[in-house]
């Protein structure tokens, strides 16, 4: 099983790498992690060779840069998803996969457009612990949100929030699941704090 840690050196704000290490451990010896830095996003890349792709949180500036680099590989990422690759995007990295992103200044940029949701950014940051329910685990999920944006237009959320905030301040639904794509704004080592969730992904990949 080949796992890709996409932009491990660029989208790495909150110890996010713990997620992919935990998943690799849950998968056992067959799993190996390929760490791809920003500078390797050039030329032809085949993402279908990976069973799993992970990408973590970035500063807003890094996220915009990452988006421009990934734009070139939009179809390659889509091909991987269509081919059965599971993608987990945590923190603000999942915002890149939507239709468009509007900055606090009003500037709007196109997202990768794999999904229909849109993102609005503000000058204020929201930080909070969250507790949530996920249909794939028995125990509730615990995590932390640290963001300056809201997500609009998601039909199929990842989590139902018990305590904390969802995609928008008054939405109790957080993140997105669509096919093999899992996006959540929870930062940091989510799979470490929620071993059942790590097991869920391990099962999915077996």
């Amino acid at each position, binding site marked *: 099983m080949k796992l890709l840690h996409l932009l491990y050196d660029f989208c790495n704000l909150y110890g996010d790498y713990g997620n992919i290490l935990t998943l690799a451990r849950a998968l056992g010896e067959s799993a190996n992690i390929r760490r791809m830095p920003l500078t390797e996003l050039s030329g032809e890349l085949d993402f279908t060779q990976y069973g799993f792709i992970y990408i973590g949180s970035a*500063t807003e500036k*890094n996220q915009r840069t990452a988006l421009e680099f990934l734009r070139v590989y939009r179809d390659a990422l889509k091909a991987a998803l269509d081919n059965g690759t599971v993608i987990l995007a945590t923190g603000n990295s999942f915002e890149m996969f939507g239709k468009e992103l509007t900055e606090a200044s009003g500037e709007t940029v196109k997202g990768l457009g794999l999904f229909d949701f849109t993102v609005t950014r503000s000058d204020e940051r929201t930080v909070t612990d969250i507790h949530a329910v996920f249909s794939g685990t028995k125990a509730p999920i615990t995590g932390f949100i640290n963001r300056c944006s809201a997500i609009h237009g998601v039909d199929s959320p990842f989590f139902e929030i018990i305590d904390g905030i969802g995609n928008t301040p008054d939405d109790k639904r957080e993140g997105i699941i669509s096919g093999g794509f899992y996006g959540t704004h929870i930062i940091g080592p989510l799979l*470490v704090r929620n071993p059942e969730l790590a097991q869920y992904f391990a099962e999915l990949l077996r």
Partner: protein
Amino acid sequence: MRMFLAVLVCRFIHFMGGLFGRGSSLPGLVALKIYPSVLAHVKFPPAVVAVTGSNGKTSTVEMTAHVLKSVGKKVIYNREGSNQIAGAASLILSSCTLTGKVKGDVVLLETDERYAKHIFKYFSPTHYVITNLLRDQLTRNGHPEWVYDSILPSIPRGTTLVLNADDPLVSCFADAADKTVWFGMDRQPFSTEEHIGVYDDGKYCPKCKAPMEYEYYHFNHIGSYRCTGCGHKKAATDFTVTAADLEKAEIVINGEYNIKLAFSGIYNIYNILACFAVCSLIGVSGGDVAQNIGSYVLTNGRIQRYRLGVNEGMFLISKHENSVSYDSSLKYIAQSGADCAVIVIVDSVSRRYETGETSWLWDIDFELLNCDSVKRIYLSGKHAEELAVRLSFTDIPADRITVIPDIEKMTEAAGAEKYGMLYTVTCFSDKDKFLSKTEPLENVCGGVDR
């Protein structure tokens, strides 16, 4: 008239606060209610120094206050915890005459990274020191670039910025300044050509995001860099650590001023250097600065020592949610080389707020403890199990790690077996939970990275 009232009320509450032991920002809060723009009408002395940044601002302010007082200046300065606008107003107004003139030669302010822009709406510092921007309390601060954006609007026209040239993000502030003075450290024997640490915030340029090249690193992303894209690079420094010998615990500034260190950490060198730069800029001679920093270092920031059962120990204060602070303690332990055991306690993440957020544990370079001299590692506190998971992803042999969440039970175990030295690494928020179980010993010279 409003000034008269604001100062009077501020002084009165300040006085009453002394009697009742109330918080230090209340007088300022009330004064600001009476006269919101009061700080804009205060007559400041010729030198108003502000210090901000992630790490080292408290140490820099205290050291600078000491040096300035030693050369006969009257210094008005704040202490930890009163670095927001109400705190600054309390400090300044309670030091004013009733007509609003500050009774002192220098106002020296430690300002919170997020609140500086509110404080400097009303008055401008003459010198504004920015020490570094590191991952620190990300639960409230977001990330270093967010803090940068928060500090940027606080930089007033006419202020001289005193910047750490070795920090690529801090260096960007120069673009917004009328005048910049740079401090930094030349390459030293302990500098490395490769980056060391779990994450590398200097890998890409803060301006254009192209890859950066480093000639050397002092720690984390602090060192000599050059962007391969826009050319952003370490500036030529006006105040420079030209030599630093960690074994002899001695540094040389500008090739001629020798200063003894109490604690052989790289981090404190920057606090000393920033202090040297500021004092020089407001007219104290290099010789006087060096001599008085020396006397400060010898009497302050001592490392607490204790006895626990059969062991003697050293308490290495480290800030939770601040991986650089932890790394500095872990490096100290690794470099000391003598046989030891290490206690790491994470119980309350913060004194100020409740959170279960422990992603910062993944930014700490625990691999540093994977050395033969470290015979045992005790993990304790509410987050002991999370620490254990984190350490399970290092190459530290599992049989060297003991997990005892209950702090009292842990101290019993750690005190029962003889080790050469028993280091404890934890934060202010968990300090007393541990030290109350030990017997104090005379402290040794040492510094705290605050």
